[in-house]
């Protein structure tokens, strides 16, 4: 018997905004698809509410279903293949692309961070939606999900590692690769 009781009538008030925000971020700003996935998540949760064991919180359980829905969405659309940690280095975002292994991993000449002037910073603030969405499109789903959990859900590293079954060093590597790529993409859009 579950220690935590499900309360489906409160789901919309309690979790819909957080779930929508997460889905919106992972789907690169596709508002309709994000809304549909939130609704689908609640319906799936209702169908399998008997399977809720109460080990995790209601929110964690609903987010786990949402994450599966997001993966299914990408799988169906074949926008980007789901990335496992095994093939992470085979993604087009190897760190060697940004850093030069011949020079002790210093910045590669073509990828050195440039100064952002005040008008560029203002442009980023003004156009953050379109710039972020276009740059997030380049990231693998799993990385986006980890980034969303770090920034939007403010989850701690150990919790994210446990959910994704990765080691802390893999988590830091993913965040590093994610941010290096995101930063450069944003810089290109600003220049």
């Amino acid at each position, binding site marked *: 018997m579950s220690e935590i009781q499900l309360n*489906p*009538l409160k*789901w*919309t008030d309690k979790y*819909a*905004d957080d779930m*929508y*925000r997460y889905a*919106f*971020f992972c789907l690169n700003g596709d508002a309709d698809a994000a*809304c549909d996935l*939130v*609704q689908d998540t*609640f*319906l799936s949760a*209702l169908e399998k509410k008997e399977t809720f064991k109460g080990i995790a919180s209601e929110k964690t359980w609903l987010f786990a279903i949402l994450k599966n829905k997001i993966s299914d969405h990408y799988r169906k659309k074949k926008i980007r293949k789901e990335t496992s940690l095994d093939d992470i280095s085979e993604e087009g975002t190897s*760190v060697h692309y*940004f*850093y030069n292994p011949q*020079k*002790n*991993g*210093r*910045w590669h000449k073509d990828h*050195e*961070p*440039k*100064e*952002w002037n005040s008008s560029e*910073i203002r442009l*980023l*603030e003004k156009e*953050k*939606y379109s710039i*972020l969405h276009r740059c997030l499109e380049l990231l693998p789903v799993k990385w986006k999900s980890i980034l969303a959990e770090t*920034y*939007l859900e403010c989850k*701690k*590293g150990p919790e994210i590692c446990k959910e994704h079954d990765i080691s*802390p*060093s893999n*988590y*830091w*590597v993913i*965040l*590093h690769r994610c*941010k*290096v790529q*995101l*930063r450069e993409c*944003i*810089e290109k859009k600003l220049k």
Partner: protein
Amino acid sequence: MKPREEYKYKWYLFGCKDAGYLHEKKQDKGLNFGEKLLYYFHMASCHLCRKYVKHLELIKKNILDYALDIKLDFNKKEKIQKTIQNNLK
């Protein structure tokens, strides 16, 4: 037994890639004494990594601002609520 740290640095081979990795570790778990020395010494001497960290701060601020603005439309919420109620019957 405590697991061994997999990532060991040699000060003379420590570069921007290692600093970027340690930046993430610093944000999450914190650095040990040796790592702090390497990280802060590198940051003091590398203007590119200082720019990189500054840009990451700006990106984080923008993502957080973006997150505050995103909310599910009231009508859509109502629709979802009705769907849940219908499915509970």
